[in-house]
């Protein structure tokens, strides 16, 4: 899956939902969406997924293999659901870095974690997944949950994640994917193009952001494509687990 669709004489374009936009504009447009939804992000996640996002994240933590003393990077960590759990698992001798490109999301996540008493082994970094500001071979585990589809150059991001991982380190990508069941797929389409923007309008007064969310999910590579992208980036033993009939998939790869 290549995001770059170069015109003959114009700037390369990429998708933003179903629209094509110049590459330089995608990050700003995604930022606008997340600035808009940051305050009610957790509430919307619970409403739209019926609380299922907690189970999906829980499964990611179970497969992370994180233990005391590990160094973990939670990219696009948003409001810090995974960071909170990792902080307990790595203990005082470990370290968790919550990174997000969006300042509003990072601020909400930092305030929330501090309010929950999660501190000491957690750092907050505003960073672009494509150009991670960390040394090579630094982390035992890198996770990106519901963030990769918003990245402009996914291949660059995967390579950047590979670089910062230690050999033997794990990358976990939790992301919406393609339902494996036709009936479920139809129901899911109806749900995401009708119900999600409506709830977005009612709760955050912002139907557009949730329309983008639904569209960006459809444009994201399916299970096999993402697996191939991870292999191309240099990951070894790449596997994926479908959850809720493939609505969400957890991809896992090891740095050789």
């Amino acid at each position, binding site marked *: 899956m290549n995001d770059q669709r170069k015109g003959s004489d114009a700037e390369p374009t990429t998708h933003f939902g179903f629209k094509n936009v110049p590459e330089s504009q995608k990050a700003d447009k995604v930022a606008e969406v997340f600035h808009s939804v940051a305050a009610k992000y957790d509430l919307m996640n619970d409403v739209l997924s019926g609380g299922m996002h907690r*189970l999906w994240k829980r*499964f990611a933590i*179970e497969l*992370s293999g994180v*233990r005391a003393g590990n160094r973990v990077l939670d990219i696009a960590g948003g409001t810090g659901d995974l960071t909170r*759990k990792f902080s*307990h698992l790595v203990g005082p001798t470990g370290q968790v870095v919550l990174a997000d490109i969006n300042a509003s999301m990072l601020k909400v996540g930092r305030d929330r974690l501090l309010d929950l008493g999660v501190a000491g082994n957690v750092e907050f970094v505003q960073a672009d997944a494509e150009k991670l500001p960390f040394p090579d071979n630094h982390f035992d585990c890198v996770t990106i949950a519901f963030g990769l589809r918003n990245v402009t150059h996914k291949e660059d991001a995967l390579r950047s994640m590979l670089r910062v991982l230690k050999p033997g380190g794990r990358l976990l990508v939790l992301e919406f994917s393609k339902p494996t069941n036709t009936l479920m797929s139809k129901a899911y389409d109806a749900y995401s193009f009708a119900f999600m923007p409506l709830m977005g309008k009612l709760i955050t007064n912002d139907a557009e952001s949730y329309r983008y969310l639904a569209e960006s999910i459809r444009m994201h590579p399916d299970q096999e494509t993402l697996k191939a992208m991870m292999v191309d980036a240099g990951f070894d033993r790449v596997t994926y687990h479908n959850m809720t009939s493939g609505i969400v998939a957890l991809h896992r790869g090891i740095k050789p």
Partner: protein
Amino acid sequence: MLLSALLASVEHGLNRVLRLDSTALPRLAALDGKVIAVDCRNPALQLFILPSDDGLMLASHWLNEADCTLRAPASSLLQLALSQDKTAVLHSPQVELEGDSGVLLDLVKVLQDLELDWEYELSRWLGPVATQLIAGHLRSRASWTRQGVASFNQNLSEYLAEEARTLVGKREAEARFSELDELKIDIERLEARIERLARSLNSSDNA
């Protein structure tokens, strides 16, 4: 996914209960970083328990090696969950322990020593005055019920043993049992003596 959902609900409920005992979470903090695998036989099911100062985390998968593995049939695990004397259940023959059993024994001890402060939880919802009134009333009712049950038990056993003579009294039964024990020992002695005599008769015949 269904198991994960079930474990998440159990974990949530369990941690709420653990928070009712002010000593439980600091004691669990000592087990932070340990992994206990519970391998249920019949039906086959595996789960992992990770204690921390935040409570217990229950997982259906865990990649890292467990510090201690508990293998037991579902009936023994249920007994372990419900029994007052959990250590006795752990020592039963159906239960197998592998690895550092100290981790599991420490966890079991924390769960066994739970003293839940229900009044504190109630006061969060109803306020201190109402809680005091309700708790005082409940305490006196509970004490009255305990006394009533103990007195009824004593009266009933006295009636059945002493008046109706339907059952044998405890002391009477103990006396009979001790007589039976003595009789049994006497018979064994007699048996040994007969055997010795028989052996000496055999040896004199051979001579």
